């Protein structure tokens, strides 16, 4: 595969069959794509409306991108953006806090790990729906898929929050049925197994569930060991997209998902690597692979380009495009 054959673009109605295949292939709770054709169609329509809308952003917009391999014409990945986490409702997370309990009389000063139910990330722009065909994992495709979103947000900043967050799936058993964190926390208050709970919330607002959870801090040492261990732990399928977010400079230590304890990263858009290094296409750029986006919204396109500009396979004219280098830390991946 030639990296220049990859094209990231807004999802279109014709992508429904491809998305249905992806949704069916991914585990429960791993992809935020619903495994339901009608719901998928709604997702696609909402995304198309969001890209097309000329109205001032309400925060309800969701943007879904698909990555296409032009050499085969197949959709090989998805990624998305939700403009405002929680939108008109609250967006719940657990925040890791360390409380020092001390008694001078007993000669004890002890750092206690606690989890606080919070709304801190409400209104943040959320990165969602990351999926890459496993055959493309070791290429530059995941870089384009994940990072081009950040340039899109920068380019259309008036539509987004300047703070960005992204959820990652936490530990579950191989079947995606048992989550040690859910079993120790959520299940006590919400008598359902983890997949049912995920279905009830439809991968969208969790506020409804969170209202049923305790609002006082959870003392981590009181949890069973398996649940303690699961706090902030990634599901193995999330390692690749997570490593890209870490490389961008997102903070992964503060928030976790209230369902499965997976890490929820957050950061300020301007501080993220791809955004800091973004430049308009020009002659003064360092050589090497770059992600390039055009400046359009509805006709958004993102591609990979090796600079100094060789004539790409698609023979694109990238003048006026916004480009950012593929991070050196991850550029070791074979194109």
């Amino acid at each position, binding site marked *: 595969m030639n990296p220049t054959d990859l094209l990231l673009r807004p999802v279109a109605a014709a992508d429904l069959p491809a998305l249905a295949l992806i949704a069916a292939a991914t585990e429960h709770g791993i992809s935020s794509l619903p495994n339901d054709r009608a719901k998928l169609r709604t997702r696609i329509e909402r995304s198309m409306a969001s890209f097309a809308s000329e109205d001032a952003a309400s925060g309800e917009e969701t943007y879904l991108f698909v990555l296409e391999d032009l050499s085969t014409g197949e959709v090989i990945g998805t990624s998305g953006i939700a403009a405002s986490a929680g939108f008109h409702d609250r967006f719940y997370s657990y925040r890791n806090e360390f409380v020092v*309990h*001390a*008694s001078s*009389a*007993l000669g*004890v000063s*002890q750092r*206690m790990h606690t989890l606080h139910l919070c709304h801190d990330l409400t209104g943040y722009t959320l990165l969602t729906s990351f999926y890459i065909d496993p055959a493309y994992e070791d290429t530059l495709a995941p870089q384009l898929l994940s990072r081009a979103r950040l340039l899109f947000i920068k380019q259309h900043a008036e539509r987004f929050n300047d703070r960005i967050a992204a959820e990652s799936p936490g530990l579950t058993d191989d079947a995606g049925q048992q989550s040690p964190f859910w079993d120790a926390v959520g299940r*006590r*208050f*919400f*008598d359902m197994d983890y997949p049912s709970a995920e279905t*009830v919330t439809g991968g969208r607002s969790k506020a*409804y569930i969170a*209202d*049923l*959870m*305790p609002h*006082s*801090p*959870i*003392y981590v*040492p*009181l*949890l069973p060991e398996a649940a303690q261990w699961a706090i902030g732990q990634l599901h193995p399928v999330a390692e690749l997209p997570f490593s890209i977010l870490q490389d961008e400079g997102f903070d992964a230590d503060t928030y976790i998902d209230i369902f499965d304890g997976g890490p929820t990263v957050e950061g300020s858009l301007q501080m993220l690597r791809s955004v800091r290094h973004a430049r308009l296409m020009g002659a003064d750029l360092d050589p090497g692979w770059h992600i390039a986006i055009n400046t359009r919204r509805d006709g958004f396109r993102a591609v990979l380009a090796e600079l100094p500009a060789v004539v790409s396979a698609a023979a694109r004219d990238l003048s006026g495009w916004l480009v950012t280098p593929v991070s050196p830390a991850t550029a070791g991946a074979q194109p």
Partner: protein
Amino acid sequence: MTTPYVVRELRTGEPLPAWINQTGVVLQPLPAAGDIGLLLVDADAQAADQSFACLRLRSKLGLDLPRYSYHLGRVVHAAAELNLFSTQPTLMLGNDHTGDSELADLACAPGLDFDAQVAALRTLIHAALDRVQPCQRVIVELAGPRDAASGQSPFWQGLGRFFYDGDPAQAQARHGDAWRSHLAALLPRQTLYLSFLNEAAQAAVGRVGEVGQPAAQALRECGFAFAQHVRIDDGGPLLERYATRAS
């Protein structure tokens, strides 16, 4: 008990016997200033100090040393659309009994059988209630259960030990009554959902351990009842009633 007996107050400077009280602690020989010590003694041998049982009445507890207990509460999590209605028991740390009167150091001489202990303590409890202002709330702490094999308190094993890794019995011996005020500083301040404790700890909440059984029986017969407060170290219950001079 066959011999006639009477209640008398402890004389100034007279030590309490080294018996084990209703919380499982060996009596401190000299009661604190302001406390009234009551002894049940043999009527024929008042001068000989032959005593069967004792009790210490303390008024206005918690005014110099903060007294902590857990209030056992309930929170209902309901969601009609999900057909969910779940009642969650909670523990909340507080000083709810500050200013109340307390019956402490209920203890009997070794060798008395259960019924004799209950009868002796009942007499002392009545005598103590006669010395309390009407309408004043009177509380008594009782020991929580201990595991028969290890002697450990399941409630402590499920909660306290995560916040203090020393031995609670040693800490009690070293700091006396102040121990649990110090412990409270290490425990969570916010509502604690009981379901986060292990099952043995949950089951121990509000239950009376072996050592507290005679006192619990005597107190119930004297109108004391559980009022949803437990001890912060072993989860043993606090029983309470309001004083009247009717008796």
